[in-house]
């Protein structure tokens, strides 16, 4: 079994100081305290393209933008039942993030799969933001446990439950993993590069398909996303 115990574990506020962020290293395991809010394409479009007023004080109340829609219900008495919490893939939001980071002052972007190191260098670093990835991606029950309460749900009528802006109060919520650091390096890209060294051996004894497809690349260090 690998030495998972070797990894460094850190408690972090959702309104983190610049020093706390600068101290984080790729692969650190992070647990969050404070308010986080969910925002994905629905919120971005409404706030940025339709210029609706963001119904929170950002980043004072929270500098943690979670790419997520929780498994939750809004009860008829206006209360909320929240079960599991799982991130959604972030690369799809690259289009809105530069403007969003500048406008919201978010310092932590939390999601699935990360972005490219180019994205980090281009607009995460200038805004002093880093990217945290959820772990395994399926750890919805663990993360759900870290949510102490649902503070508010904004825009659920306009956007539906999945796209609404959920404001969650968190205590020791995690695990998350540091995917980008204050210099804009990416843990995923570091790992991809290590794995790429071995790939040609794995592919021995295989052959490319007779019928090619448009846009096909034979360079497996490429990523098909983005």
């Amino acid at each position: 079994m690998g030495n998972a115990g070797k990894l460094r574990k850190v408690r972090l506020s959702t309104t983190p100081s610049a020093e706390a962020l600068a101290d984080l290293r790729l692969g650190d395991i992070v647990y969050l305290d404070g308010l986080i809010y969910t925002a994905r394409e629905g919120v971005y479009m409404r706030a940025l393209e339709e210029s609706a007023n963001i119904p929170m004080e950002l980043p004072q109340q929270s500098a943690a933008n979670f790419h997520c829609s929780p498994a939750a219900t809004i009860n008829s008495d206006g209360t909320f039942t929240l079960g599991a919490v799982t991130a959604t893939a972030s690369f799809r939001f690259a289009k809105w993030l530069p403007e969003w980071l500048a406008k919201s002052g978010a310092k932590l972007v939390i999601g699935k799969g990360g972005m490219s190191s180019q994205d980090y260098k281009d607009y995460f670093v200038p805004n002093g933001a880093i990217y945290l990835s959820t772990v395994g991606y399926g750890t919805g029950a663990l993360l759900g446990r870290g949510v102490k309460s649902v503070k508010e749900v904004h825009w659920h009528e306009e956007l539906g439950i999945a796209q609404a802006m959920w404001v969650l109060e968190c205590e020791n919520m995690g695990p998350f993993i540091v995917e980008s650091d204050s210099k804009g390096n990416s843990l995923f890209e570091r790992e991809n590069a290590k794995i790429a060294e071995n790939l040609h051996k794995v592919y021995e004894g295989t052959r490319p398909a007779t019928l090619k497809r448009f846009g096909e690349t034979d360079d497996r260090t490429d990523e098909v996303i983005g």
Partner: protein
Amino acid sequence: MISTSLIQSTAEILMDKAAIEIPQDYLDGLTQAADAEDGDLSSFVLQAMLENYAVAKEDRRAMCGDTGTPRWYVKMGNETQIEGGPIALENALRLATANATVNVPLRPNRVHPLWRTDHNNNVGIGAPEIEYGFEPGGEWLDLTTVHKGGLFGTDYRMLFPSDGIEGIKRFYLDSLVAFGKRGLACQPAIIGIGLGGTKDSCMVLGKRAACLRIVGDRNPDPKIAALEDEFKELGNSIGMGAMGFVGKSMVIDCNIEVGYCHTGGMQMSVHAFCLSSRRAVARIYADGQVEYRTDPDWFTPYQRRESVTWETQESSAKSA
């Protein structure tokens, strides 16, 4: 005669079980993978997943916040009768899906593709999918719900006989490597491969191979079974583990299903049933008895039949 109310109440329990309880076969497979994993980051991820399954059961909350796309597989014996007929059955399954979405709760994932309309209950046009199978003999109804996750990890390719096993391997590896990076497929997964059929039935075969066969199950054709073993190994030798970190756990198991195809082609589909391999099954008997299990036991000799007609045990005994 099986009552519709029993179908609905059983279906609601199944939705809950599928969302919360990881099937034992997958859990055993993942535990073994966690023991064998030597990458530090990958190990941490697998440990967190094992903890997550335990927490889900303890708290009775969904194991993953993403519900995937809940669907139903319905199988019945040749003698089964359902109160109200097939329309009542489909009503019961749609109601159970909608109710469970609120009660578990599950994330309401299903929206209109263009207008993004969300009924907040995972029900809509064509949702949930309901597929049917039949078995000779018997008066029972098998309900299986699968909550397959993942926008990623599934692909189709038209190959040709000349592409051979080498071409199949290439497409298999390409799919794993492409979707495994950054762990988009939420591996380690049960990989289902469909070979042959037609484009649509090939997709169906691969998906069923991933979702309706359990870890450790092998195709009855010994040569295909050997291929399943080989492909499992191959996937785990890529050097990639959970979340795309350096490691060796990509594939908990590989299941292959085949169908007769056009003489000129060799269709291939790959499906990844993710870390939240959610399935739950119940058999309802005519007397109202219900048995729960996690093995859909879908691919019976009848489902894989090659002959023109199906000879039942009795008739073949008679003709012999």
